[in-house]
Each structure stands twice: as C-alpha cells, then as structure tokens.
C-alpha cells in the first residue's frame, strides 16, 4: 500500500523498522545528481580554464565522423591567430594526437582502453601533462560514440556534435540524448553529398529542432576545406564571449545539465 508513511510495517518485519527519507528532506539532501563526483571535478576543470581565459570545446560524434580531420583543418586555419591545444580521447592509439602534433600544436592523448567516453577525472589528469598558460582554445576530442559522452560534463564550455553525411540524416532522432547536448551541430563530409543523395541536411536540421535544440548548424567538409568560414567565425565569436564572461567572473555550462533537474531543485 502506502510505502511512504511506514504503514506497511507488520509484526513480521517490525524489527527492521525503516526510516523513509522525508519528501522535504529528499529535495534538500538527496536531490543531487548521481554523477556529483564527476560534476565536482568538471567544475574544477572549468575553473582551471576560466582562470586562464581558455575556451574549452568538447567534440563528439560516431567513430570516424571526422573529428580529427576537422581539428586538423581548424588548427591549420587558426593556429597563427590563437594559441590552441588539443586533448585526444581514443580507445587504443596515439594516432590522433600525432596528427595534431604534426601541425605544431600541443596535444595530449588519453588512451581510455575500454572506456567508451571521457570523464572529468581523465581530463583533469590530462591537464597536468599540458602547458595551459597562454592557451586560447582547448579542443577535447571525445571517444567516438553517440551515447555516453553526452552524459559526462568534462569542464568544457561548449559541446560540438558532428554528424557526417554517410551516417544518415535521422541520427538526431535516433540519439536524442547526444543531439540535445549539442551547442553546435556540424554536418561533416559535405563533399560526399554529391554521391549520397539520400542525406538531406535540411532534414537533419529539422530533426535537431524537434529536440527543441536551437543550436546553429554548420555544413562543412574538412577534406575539401568547404564551409569552414562560418564554423571559424562561430569559434571566434565564442572565444570573445568567453573572455567577456571571464572578465565578469562568470562561466558557462555546456548543454549537458538537464533542464528538468534544475527545475525540480528550484
């Protein structure tokens, strides 16, 4: 029957009298994210970034959607303008970090072994291997996976989710948790649209809106260097916004924080 007031105590179980946590006490003491440890570490990471005026971005996508290729193209365009650094998350190899270092940009590889996502502790460990002073933009390439990376705050300010045209334009509808977390969605490998007429970028964007996500959508090809200007302009804009926040002692959380939980605690 009622399992909140203890009225289901019977002679048989009375000696195990249990103490329900009061609903009011629940909202105060119990109602916190279960991922509190990760979130605390993420806040600490963000404090490291904010203290140095760094804008941190988390790149997420399926394996092989073009995250490293996008970074290579982005760094080639921005490395003379800004001091950039990259954290690479990969299951096994150092390959991606080596591709970044080949550009003359500082990169640290986190080899996750079997973990399918980065968490705030892994990123903090990586930060201790890096020279952060003077860095303007820090890119964190998450493990290729459209599921768990969306649930872990790493301390970044912005999430960027890539969707390559070979994956199908309905991915946002199939992986709503991931695409809801996007602060920007990049439709990548657009050079292949010519041969893949079943991917409709407008449909991909419509699926993103159906998740109530107002994030900007950029269409680009890292390989052919097409469509990069709008993405680069957005990055510059976001760095300016970050500097303004830092000057006012404020910060920005990525989209990960669920709206609902915040409303419940209010």
């Amino acid at each position, binding site marked *: *029957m009622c*399992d*909140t007031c203890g009225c*289901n105590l*019977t*002679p*048989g*179980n009375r*000696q*195990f*009298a*249990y*103490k*329900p*946590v009061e609903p009011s006490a*629940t909202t105060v*003491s*119990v*109602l*916190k*994210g*279960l*991922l*509190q*440890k*990760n979130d605390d570490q993420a806040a600490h990471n963000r404090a490291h970034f904010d203290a140095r005026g760094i804008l941190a971005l988390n790149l997420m996508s399926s394996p092989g959607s073009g995250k490293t290729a996008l970074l290579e193209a982005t760094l080639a365009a921005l490395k003379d303008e800004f001091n950039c650094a990259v954290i690479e998350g990969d299951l096994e190899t150092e390959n991606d970090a080596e591709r970044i270092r080949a550009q003359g940009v500082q990169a640290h590889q986190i080899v996750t072994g079997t973990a*399918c*996502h980065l*968490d705030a502790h892994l990123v903090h460990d990586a930060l201790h291997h890096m020279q952060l002073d003077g860095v303007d933009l820090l890119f964190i390439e998450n493990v290729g*996976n459209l*599921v*768990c990376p*969306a*649930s*872990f705050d790493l301390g970044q300010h912005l999430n960027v989710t890539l969707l390559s045209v070979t994956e199908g334009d309905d991915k*946002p*509808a*199939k992986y*709503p*948790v991931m695409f*809801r977390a996007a602060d920007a969605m990049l439709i990548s490998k657009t050079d292949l649209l010519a041969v893949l007429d079943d991917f409709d970028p407008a449909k991909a964007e419509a*699926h993103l*809106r*159906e*998740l*109530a996500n*107002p994030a900007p959508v950029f269409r680009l090809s890292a390989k052919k260097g097409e469509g990069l200007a709008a993405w680069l302009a957005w990055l510059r804009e976001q760095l300016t916004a970050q500097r303004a926040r830092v000057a006012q002692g404020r910060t920005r959380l990525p989209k990960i924080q*669920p*709206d*609902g*939980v915040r*409303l*419940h605690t209010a």
Partner: protein
Amino acid sequence: MHELSVAQALVDAVESLIEQNGARAARRIRLRIGPLAGVVPALLTSAFPLAAAGSRCERAELDLIEAPIRVRCQTCGAESEAAINRLLCAACGDWHTQVVSGDELLLERVELDLQEEPQEEPMETLNYGSPP
C-alpha cells in the same frame, strides 16, 4: 555503456545517507529515471549488484521509476507530454520548448535499516507490504 559508473555513484550516494542517518544498511532504493537521462534502466538494474557487492547496499532492492517526458512551451506557455525524439509543444506544435520532466536521474527515496545488529530472522525472508 556507462551504467556501471552510474551504479557506483548511486552506491556512494546511498552509503553517505546510511552514514548520515547512523543506519546499518539500505533496504530499498527508489530512483527516478527520465528517458532523456541517457541511462538504460535494464542495464542499470544489472550493473547495480556489481557496484553494491560488499557495500551496505548489497541487500537493497532497487526500484526504478520511469519519469514521463513533459515539455513547457516558450511560445504559448502550454505544458504537455512529448516523445523522446519529438519534444514539440502538443498545443501549438512549436519546437521552442523546455523539458520540465523526463531528463532526471534522481535518487528519490531510500529506506534504511536502523537496526544495530541483525536479528535471528534472515533478511531474505522479509516480505514488505504483505502481512505474513
């Protein structure tokens, strides 16, 4: 995928409640999960015993309550139910909505065993809710 780390965080949270309340163990844990939280209830159910092994949550029953998805429309103000991949306003169809429920991962309630020492009667025979 990451349900084991969620289960470990859950066990940590309940352990600290046990500590705060000077209890002996947790008997029952109720967790509210929204479909948009990114946690698969079935995977969490199977991960929980692994995370709880050897802890004071070991014998606890885990109840997972699935929260409905509800959105509030920023255009017309209506609040309505929505599907996981169509968070549109049911009243006016607009996509400018805010999720008010359905993305939570909340430890709602924990029933604690306050007994100092275990009684002769083994816990496994306990039958909550129905008189013997």
